[in-house]
């Protein structure tokens, strides 16, 4: 494990940003060959330094190497390889149709890099949330500053030490430090800023960005609901429970923006679900090291505070055990905690799972619509009509049926929020586009000229122009020939 890199002094930031602008202006980052080399560098970093990465993630979050691979390293390598494969296609200009009247003309939409961009990543997927957007920004041809979260210091230090080794250290910088450093960075103008984190800091970022008209993308949090419908077959129920557990406790102990926050289930099915959850949790988490720990004391206290609420503590039906020394909280299930309690109003971001019962499963739609739009909605059901209703009557970043979290690893679909869960989408081609500007380029010839484009105006010219705008070429032609008024 490498030693900690010194924090970049705030005074040095001016020089840092200025230097990056110089590098960008030199045109180096725009070359496809450069972009390919950076993406290959990322793959090398991820494969050669895998053990160091596992160590860092275990130190920061107590993540098991399998989880670290599944959720961070493996998904990243797959994504960067996909980007590498498609880079030329994505960077190529796209032809757009042109109306006949502007013949001869060609219209193109040309993707170009935005310039110098800034990425803030979050502590819970400290590698993934830094390197996935980084790969998109590099693929799009930008120079980049990465500001990893100081709350995951081992991963931050790992990035600061290794990014300069595997990538072009003049065009890709890692800036470490406390939130004040992030604020100082935002005093500068950027060509784009991506922020992943909470709404409070998201607002600070956007406010500072407004001063420079810096475009931003915000990936924020939310309460991701999971609707569990009646599942007749035992096999289906078991699979659903496996996947629910996978999306709650097996993913950074529930500390993930797309983790299942709470469950909605019919009153009568709830006991069956709870029993199945209990028995499967027992089987899955026989070893304590298979579940990540809580990030730090502050979050531990926050989560234990959620449980201490007397309207909530009586609803615990499983778990509840906590150890402040090891910062671990066992998988905890609650049945119908008070809807006014903090646990049902704030994003939980931890291993506590409230189960809310409804009379009919369709009622869950109204329930979840009473809350801000989440990053993801999950539903386990075989009922096609219910699925359609969920798609049409709710709004969320994404909807996944009969599984959870896996949408994160699918490059063909966009990942991002809506409403309070944020704006801007990435992953796959969307990462490339997030850091690109699509420039419209129209090429005309000096050959053919239509006199009626120009003043002095008269009714005849106006008439001709009306035909043009209706794409009424026949009338246009006839009028030009004097055969029609």
């Amino acid at each position, binding site marked *: 494990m490498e030693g900690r890199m010194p924090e970049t002094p705030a005074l040095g930031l001016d020089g840092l940003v200025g230097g990056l602008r110089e590098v960008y*202006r030199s045109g180096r980052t*725009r070359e496809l060959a450069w972009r390919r080399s950076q993406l290959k560098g990322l793959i090398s970093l991820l494969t050669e330094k895998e053990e160091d990465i596992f160590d860092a993630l275990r130190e920061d979050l107590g993540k098991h*190497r*399998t989880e670290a*691979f*599944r959720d961070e390293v*493996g998904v990243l*390598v*797959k994504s960067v390889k996909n980007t590498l494969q498609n880079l030329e296609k994505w960077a190529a200009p796209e032809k757009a149709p042109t*109306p006949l009247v502007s013949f001869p003309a060609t219209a193109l*939409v*040309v993707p170009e890099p*935005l310039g110098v961009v800034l990425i803030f990543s979050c502590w819970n997927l400290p590698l993934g949330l830094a390197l996935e957007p980084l790969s998109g920004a590099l693929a799009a041809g930008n120079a980049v500053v990465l500001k990893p979260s100081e709350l995951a210091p081992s991963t931050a230090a790992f990035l600061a030490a290794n990014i300069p080794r595997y990538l072009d250290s003049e065009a890709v910088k890692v800036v470490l430090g406390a939130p004040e450093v992030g604020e100082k960075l935002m005093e500068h103008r950027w060509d784009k800023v991506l922020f992943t984190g909470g709404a409070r800091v998201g*607002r600070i970022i956007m406010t500072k*960005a407004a001063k420079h*008209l810096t475009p931003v993308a915000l990936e924020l949090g939310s309460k991701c609901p999971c609707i569990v419908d009646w599942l007749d077959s035992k096999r*289906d129920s078991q*699979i*659903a429970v*496996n996947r629910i*557990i*996978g999306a709650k406790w*097996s993913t950074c102990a529930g500390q993930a923006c797309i983790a299942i926050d709470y469950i909605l289930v019919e009153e009568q099915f709830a006991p069956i679900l709870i029993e199945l959850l209990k028995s499967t949790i027992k089987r*899955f988490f026989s*070893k304590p090291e*298979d*579940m990540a720990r809580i990030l730090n004391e502050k979050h531990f206290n926050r989560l234990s505070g959620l449980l201490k609420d007397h309207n909530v503590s009586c609803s615990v039906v499983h778990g509840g055990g906590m150890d402040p020394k090891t910062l671990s909280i066992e998988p905890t299930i609650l049945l119908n905690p008070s809807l006014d309690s903090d646990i049902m109003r704030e994003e939980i971001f931890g291993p506590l799972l409230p189960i809310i019962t409804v009379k009919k499963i369709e009622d869950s739609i109204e329930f979840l619509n009473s809350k801000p739009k989440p990053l993801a909605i999950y539903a386990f059901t*075989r009922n096609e009509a219910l699925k359609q209703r969920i*798609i049409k009557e709710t709004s*969320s970043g*994404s*909807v*996944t*049926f009969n*599984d959870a979290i*896996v949408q994160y*690893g*699918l490059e*063909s*679909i*966009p*990942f991002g929020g*809506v*409403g309070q869960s944020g*704006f801007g989408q990435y992953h796959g081609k969307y990462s490339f586009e997030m850091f690109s500007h699509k*420039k*419209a*380029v*129209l090429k*005309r*010839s*000096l050959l053919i*000229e239509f006199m009626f484009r*120009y*003043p*002095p*105006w008269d009714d005849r010219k*106006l008439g001709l*122009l009306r035909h043009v*705008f209706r794409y009424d070429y026949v009338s246009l032609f006839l009028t030009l020939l004097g055969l029609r008024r």
Partner: protein
Amino acid sequence: MATEMEAEICDALYADVGKPETEAHVHEISLVKSSCLFALKNLKKWMKPKKVHARLMTFPSTARITKEPLGVVLVISAWNYPLLLSLDPVIGAIAAGNAVVLKPSEVAPATSSLLAELLPRYVDSTCIKVVEGGVSETTALLELKWDKIFYTGNSKVGRMVMASATKHLTPVVLELGGKCPVVVDSNINLHVTAKRIAAGKWGCNNGQACIAPDFIITTESFAPKLLEALKKVLEKFYGKDPLLSEDLSRVVTPNHFNRLLDLMDDEMVSDKIVFGGQRDEQKLKIAPTIFLDVPLDSAMMKEEIFGPLLPIITVEKIHESFGLINSMTKPLAAYLFTRDSKLQKQFESTISAGGMILNDTSVHLTNPHLPFGGVGESGTGSYHGRFTFDAFSHGKAVLHRGFGGEAKARYPPYSSAKLKILKGVLAGKLGAHIQAILGFPRGK
């Protein structure tokens, strides 16, 4: 509405900016109509969920992207194309299924009240509202929670709009301005070039358009020829006394009139006038005016002109124009006139702008297949055609999985055998997938 109320609309546009009837038709009414027709024609296609690849990793599964409306959106429009810049975004917002509030510019009061009066008659007034007013009304509107804010105007107010949007974390589209440069090479058809520049500058609201050519860059040696050609064309278009021509818009308000006079009469540039300069304070009219070689640090070269003044900057070699343009903030549009394809390629790859045209000006905004919007100081987001629909939509990813293909390797308790399978799955190895689906590793 656009068809039946043509006369009223033309009158309002004339009252607001003295817009000639032809410009009113060509630049506003016709474009609004064709935008509606384009949306109607393509609506079903745009609304259809798009199926995308669902990879081996999530097999079996299907994935789609479904477009859904954002909700309730706010459109703040500008005064120079008060009909078009109000209705074009509104058309897209409606097509995408949103409820809309339109706040037309108070600097174009006739059009603003016309819209407030007419719109409720033609569209569903419970979902589409017009709110008139000035700074205080706009500020009050910006305090509220919107699902998107679409603003057209200047960058100073653009910053305030974005800052207000922060409160509710509202995403914004900002269509701002900039100094749109025109680079003119010597290898061209001079007469056609001069016409197209003139049409884009003075034929667009007398230079009061965000994509009007702001200034020209050409070589020292070519400048005299270009100037002569422009003078000839201007006389043809507007006659010997342009202030009398019906075909030129007036300047919108006394404020802007004085602003332009200050730019013109600035002692750094006043001796550089080579054509025009006539003004009529009563009628708020300024004639097409050309300057040659104004200093780069003059006010005229630092701010967006937004009026009928055209500085020509000369360089020794045409390539020097690129460095000059790149030393300024990114404009909404950049134009180049040349037959030299190498120069064209260089321009395309070196200059960043919202959009660019080779051998013409302004017309790209009429192509609904091209995204129209700025970058950097000239704005964020784009619209026109399908892009407006997308600007007011959320592309929701919908992934359908079945209960088949259960991979035990995903779950704890973890083991090196499970890790091995996961590595294979994520590397796309078919063998590992099969193992995963068959429930390997056996046992725990």
